[in-house]
């Protein structure tokens, strides 16, 4: 038995942990690109802010896209609800609320991450310290995930947590793809054309997939293949298909445990079915932007529907 409020806390705790990590990953990719392409550093940082969906809020506070302004805004600005520090604070508040549902290991890793990182991010981060800071964030998040997978019982608590993680992740990957392709592919005629490698590498880096991509495709960067990889691949942990395999699995296990299926179960399966059956060519033909926009809307709707039927909206 699980309180609705506890399910809510677990779901959001994991969304915020995932968000903190995704934001750190985006900054990491931006830093790498800005370092290798000094001439267009501002463009790279602007693209990072766009991918994070933070452009309007950022431009209200800052006039220039630099490593300093962007990392300040994305890492430690408490007025930005999706900054690493804000996301971490929200994750910890939720974890405190659902403490009784977590193992001591998980709680201590979340609390430890908050204590360590809030101290680390107490002062503005010098550009030279960025790599270490980002590394510390990623390691803290890995520790949380490690204790979570290593110590939590596989029951409803685990499944609601997984739903939070993968709904957030699917949203993040879809948004990154949408923004990057919007910038990189102004017209359909670009599709299939060889482009500057580094642009494509930046997409893959944003989701930490630049190594695995080469392992899977063993060739040059190709926009159609990259989209295929991040949308349809069931092996790639940040792909939409992978996220939906997990969402569907958690929902199915919940339905079995509770002996009841809802509309959200069918909805998730419809999305999964289309990710499993559609080809990347058909997605491009119908319009990548349209497909991703529809996906993001449907993903949000699913999250709201889950909260409603399981009494935690």
């Amino acid at each position, binding site marked *: *038995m*699980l*309180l*609705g*409020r*506890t*399910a809510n806390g677990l779901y959001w705790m994991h969304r915020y942990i995932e968000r903190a990590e995704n934001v750190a990953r985006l900054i990491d990719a931006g830093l790498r690109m800005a370092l290798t392409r000094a001439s267009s550093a501002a463009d790279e940082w602007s693209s990072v802010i766009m991918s994070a969906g933070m452009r309007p809020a950022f431009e209200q506070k800052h006039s220039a896209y630099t490593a300093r302004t962007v990392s300040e805004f994305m890492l430690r600005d408490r007025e930005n609800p999706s900054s690493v520090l804000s996301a971490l604070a929200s994750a910890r*508040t939720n974890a*405190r*609320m659902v*403490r*009784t549902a977590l193992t*001591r290991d998980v*709680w*201590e890793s979340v*609390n*430890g991450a908050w*204590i360590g990182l809030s101290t680390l991010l107490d002062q503005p981060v010098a550009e030279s310290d960025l790599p270490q800071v980002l590394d510390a964030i990623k390691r803290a998040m890995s520790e949380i995930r490690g204790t979570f997978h290593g110590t939590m019982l596989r029951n*409803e608590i685990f499944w*609601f947590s997984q739903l939070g993680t993968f709904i957030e992740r699917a949203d993040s990957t879809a948004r990154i793809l949408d923004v990057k392709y919007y910038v990189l592919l102004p017209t359909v005629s670009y599709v299939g054309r060889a482009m500057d490698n580094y642009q494509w590498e930046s997409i893959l880096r944003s989701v930490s997939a630049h190594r695995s991509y080469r392992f899977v495709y063993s060739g040059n960067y190709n926009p159609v293949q990259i989209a295929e990889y991040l949308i349809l691949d069931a092996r790639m942990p940040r792909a939409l298909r992978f996220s939906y395999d997990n969402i569907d699995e958690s929902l199915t296990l919940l339905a079995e445990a*509770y002996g*009841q299926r809802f509309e959200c179960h069918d909805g998730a399966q419809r999305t999964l079915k289309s990710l499993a059956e559609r080809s990347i060519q058909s997605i491009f033909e119908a319009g990548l932007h349209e497909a991703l926009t529809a996906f993001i809307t449907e993903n949000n709707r699913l999250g709201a529907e889950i909260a409603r039927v*399981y*009494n*935690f909206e």
Partner: protein
Amino acid sequence: MTPFDEMLLGQGEGDGQGQEVRAPYRLLNEWMKSQPLDKLRLKAEDAERVFRKTGITFAVYGDAEAAERLIPFDIVPRIITGREWRKLSQGIEQRVVALNAFLDDIYHRQEIVRAGRIPKELIAQNKAFVPEMMGFRPPGNVYTHIIGIDLVRTAENEFYVLEDNARTPSGVSYMLENRETMMQLFPELFQQIKVLPVETYPQMLRESLSALAPASRANANPTVAVLTPGIHNSAYFEHAFLADQMGVELVEGSDLRLVDGRIAMRTTEGYRPIDVLYRRVDDAYLDPLTFRPESALGVPGIMDVYRAGRITIANAPGTGIADDKAVYSYMPEIIEFYTGRRPILENVPTWRCSVASDLNYVLEHLNELVVKEVHGSGGYGMLVGPAASKKELAAFTDKLKANPGNYIAQPTLALSTTPILTKAGLAPRHVDLRPFVLVSDRIRIIPGGLTRVALTEGSLVVNSSQGGGTKDTWVLDD
């Protein structure tokens, strides 16, 4: 006035050199002497890290900067012998029996008032009195299920009850975490010295609560839940800790509502009824339909369900009448009235400022006394005469004259000291003790309790909200 030192025999300020060590502390003392000071200090730092990472924090009201603070923990255990403990237990047991008999009487025929043993105004005009409880008898006639009795020691065989906490005593989670931490830091010490366990407390608490489920649910496996005001409450850590350790749900008012005549919690599979609610929400906030209408912390209608015998609330509403500081001064009479025996544990002599002759005495001897608010707690709003400045004494004189009924006064007791670890080594500091008692089908007392320690040299104020710390408390298995 030299305080009683629980470790060292003999008089005067001592550093342990050449002074005889009391028997219960001998093994500990030898072990401490064998440890280099810097190693002990490192252990103390380890302990602080453990506490912070575990999130064993508390909020201090009126201190926005330190939203979550640690209660300082001292690594030197406080030791009580088995013999001392057995006598304390008897006194504690007698006291909680009397407290529950008193509550039952107050909410029924008020025989004690009729007999003229306590004044009528003490009850009738008391803010902690809950008229909605009149004529209602909770399961097992138990009103106060979970009690903390604050004790102080002044000599080898002299213990006093400083106050009874019959509403929602807190601190038991620190007792448990202190032991856990000590066992992690000094496992070898526990092999040398046999200490009675405290870690059974959560199980005891669950058994104790379950045993008083409503009669209609007595044969089922009752559903227990802990009601917390939420994560911003100063004792939230403890609420979550106890729910977790008992394996029951931690609920907030917003999770609960009236469903088919019972109080039920909203779960992912719909509403599930609760049989026993261990509430850590004050009376005034428990039911907006009965008490404060603006309260969002409670459950509308819970008092009706309670009075219909369909949920057990621990502690019962209205138990505050028994731990009021003005009522405290009548505890010797109360114990005799209901148990027919002299109190085993003594009260601290108390002047009631509502009585004119007492007030005159208090005003004349203010610089020797401790003055407390009748309804106060946590060490807020109290005056320690010997430590107060002329200005503070004058200000308090005005307060006393303006509202004498709001205060009681007690002599400044020479609280016993036990050693703490300071930068320079061991040094004595004043302590008190809060044993925790569970009343249900039978009385369960956990050996020991929470020792609170004033960390500042000479200070007598042990409250954590005023900078006090805690220690692990060892009752020897002898």
